[in-house]
């Protein structure tokens, strides 16, 4: 398994600590279900992206931590919903049984909504109204019909059907790109970054997000479930990037997307070194 960059550990610790504080496992069933997925072992790429975006724009990590946690909570919520029998019907997630397998479908749905609400609540409580308002709108777009929900809906409709490349992109943009983009933007916003910096980070996240998804598709075909933490060939019924270009072509395009993401960081110079390491890590997952 490709190790995450060494600097990740520190960020992961801070994020995990904050997540445990915001969503403690109080023992009741819903809290337990929320914590089960949220606190499961994860690379925390999205919240780390938020913290790095804040840093590259001159912001402080503590100020960006609530936003980073909100991103992870939304992500965990989307994972619970995605795995439901009515959706992808996946049994394994983050190296463990999926949430609905352990807690039942009803509790899993409630846990997902609990995490979603906690994400918005964290934003609202942690930032001044103007910034909170902007970030709430950002998160709402990332979750909504143009984001995660729209992507998942398109994905479901595409199952067992031949879809176009544009449709595939639409699915990935919603399911992965939207939250990557929101994670980068929210980090920059907490640092009070100007529009140009926010846009540069969005370009970075957009390209990196798609590369991430293409590599996921590749790992689904070629990966080891012991390493990836989820069953392989799960997407056999679906059209993926690999369907369009073959594994070699997908690998090539993912590499180009990572390079483009790096180019988007040019305005930040050496300050963006860790973001480049993140991009290199994403690219290395396929090697």
């Amino acid at each position, binding site marked *: 398994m490709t190790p995450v960059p060494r600097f990740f550990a520190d960020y992961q610790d801070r994020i995990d600590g904050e997540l445990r504080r915001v969503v403690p496992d109080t023992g009741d069933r819903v809290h337990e279900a929320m914590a089960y997925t949220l606190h499961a072992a994860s690379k925390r790429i999205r919240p780390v992206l938020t913290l790095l975006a804040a840093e590259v724009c001159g912001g402080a990590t503590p100020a960006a931590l609530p936003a980073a946690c909100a991103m992870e909570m939304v992500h965990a919520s989307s994972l619970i919903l995605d795995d439901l029998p009515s959706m992808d019907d996946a049994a394994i997630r983050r190296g463990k049984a999926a949430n609905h397998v352990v807690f039942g479908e009803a509790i899993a749905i409630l846990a997902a909504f609990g995490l979603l609400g906690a994400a918005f609540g964290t934003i609202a409580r942690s930032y001044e109204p103007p910034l909170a308002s902007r970030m709430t709108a950002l998160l709402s777009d990332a979750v909504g019909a143009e984001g995660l929900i729209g992507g998942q809906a398109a994905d479901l409709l595409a199952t067992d059907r031949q879809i176009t490349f544009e449709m595939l992109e639409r699915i990935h943009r919603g399911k992965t790109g939207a939250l990557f983009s929101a994670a980068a933007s929210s980090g920059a916003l907490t640092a009070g970054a100007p529009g140009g910096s926010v846009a540069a980070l969005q370009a970075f996240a957009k390209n990196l997000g*798609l590369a991430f998804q293409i590599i996921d598709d590749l790992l689904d075909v070629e990966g080891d479930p012991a390493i990836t933490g989820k069953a392989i060939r799960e997407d056999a019924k679906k059209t993926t990037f690999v369907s369009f270009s073959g594994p070699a072509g997908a690998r090539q395009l993912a590499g180009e997307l990572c390079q483009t993401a790096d180019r988007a960081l040019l305005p930040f110079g050496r300050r963006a070194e860790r973001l480049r390491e993140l991009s290199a890590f994403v690219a290395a997952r396929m090697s």
Partner: protein
Amino acid sequence: MESPPDPRQREVDDLRRQLRSLGYLDAGVDRFVLAPAEGTRRPIGIAWLASVRIGMLAALLLGPAAAIGVAARVPGLITGARDGFVVAAYLGLLFGAGSAAAAFAMCMGASMVVRKPAIHDRRRGLALAAGIAFTLACLGYLTLWWDASTFGERSAMLRSAWTIVPLGFAAAVSVLLGHLVTVTALAVVVAQRSGAVPERGIPGSSRPVVALASVLTFCGALLLFSLTAKSAPSGPEAPPLTVVSSGARVRLIAIDGFDPRIARRLADAGRVPALASMLDSASAGIDVVDTQDPARAWTTIATGQPPEVHAVHGLETRRVAGVQGAFAAGERTGLLRAIAAATDLLRLTTPAVVSGNERRVKTLWEVATTAGLRTVVVNWWATWPAAPNAGVIVSDRATLRLERGGTLDAEIAPADVYETLRARWPALRSEAGAHAAHLPAGVEMEGLLRRSAELDALQAAIARAVTPANADLVCTYLPGLDLVQYGLFHAAEAAAASPSSVARRLAALDEYYVLVDALLAPALDAASSDVLIVVTSPGRITEPAPGMLLIKGDVANPRLRDGHARPTDIMPTVLQALGVPLSQELAGRALVEMFSADFGRRYPVRMVSTYGPPAADRAERRGQPLDQEMIDRLRSLGYVR
């Protein structure tokens, strides 16, 4: 042997193209435009913020390019790097504001159109249409701008090379700005419907499409340019001028405000013998064309070209704030005057006096100097700044400099002539005063007449002081008669003058003709081998008499009376007298009928293709400029309001 293309690789290439069209694999310029609109939901807000960025980019790209075009089109405006920078900044602001306004209008237009149900699902097409429309408008304007700016290029080769690069630049800028308008329009129309800036790709942004659009745009620019290109004269470089001289030296005296009817009456009365002698020599009436502005009229005479070619359109020009050079305002219509007044009020422009920097063609003395002749010019309009290496030039600002003293600011060239004149200045003033003292006491408006007489006498004295014995051409401009005539009959108080006062003023004018006659007399006394040419203009009066061209000397044809001349004929006629070949580009012709048959037989008119543009040598300027003093002087003389 070439291997067949890998079908898998073709698929990857196709996917890459699609990804680009969807906005991936691009870390580029789109975010520059939409970045300020981040977080803005209202279409008008997105359109405004993004259009400002488009305007900024257009300013950056087009300002310097347009400054190059303006430098070619408005000679005299840009006198150095600083001027170029300032003009580029002004034009950048202009183009930036224009581009931003156009982009804003197109985006808002698209947002209004998209409200129609039939257009709902054509947002990308609508955005693309806005971008294409902007590209075409931008390309058309840039191409026509360049076409207008380069009018007058002489060399076809240079014109071709000089054209391809800016047209390519115009095409690239148009495609880029058009793309940005597409980006913005798409964001606006999506926001109009869903309230979110789109993350979808931009139509028409894949590399093959951009490449094809660039090629098509460039071809379009070439086509438009070739369809609209003016038939600018194009010929070989200026050939060397070979003088075939009769040995005659030419003395050209220009008298402004001259009325031949008065001169004839006084000649018949025996009061102006020198003028009478001239009137009895070869003479031709000059068409009265546009003599109200002396700088324009006398530059036409000196260059043999109409104002639209020589580009000295008026005495009064405007200097743009921060720019050393000036530009002519052209015909001063009421609207232009109002604009000039407004920009003056805002301190964006200041009034200035026309200079030789604005002139696009050579004067007769510059041509003669190029041909190797020794020339002197005194007090001719628009001769400041005095160019180096163009003979002796005592410019229209020289008298002011001699009065004020101090370091030269290109009022006189060569610089040692200034030292000579400074040393002799008291004597010259005294000589001029003595001349004016011949004015009868008690004459109407005696002060005006005395000042004018001194001014005329000073020019004549300066001409004598600076003219070397072997000078081939001496040109002297005498403004006094025009000043007197204007002061006597066109000043405010003249309009309300009583009949008896008018009679006294007419008598005073007669006295002034007598003084002019006295100034002319020494030239007539010169050796008969010299050619004395007197050219007159009716000046600034509203019902002018015709001008006159009078030639006296061995080479003149004394039997020619009442010939016909145009203002543009004077220069070639003077150059023909000197034996200098004439340019085919001149608007006028040499009046060979004014020369004797023998002269015409021995010295036929010879032609060359061109005299070339004026020398690029810049006059050396060190002293304090006399700009404001010159304006004040001209205002006091009634030239400038």
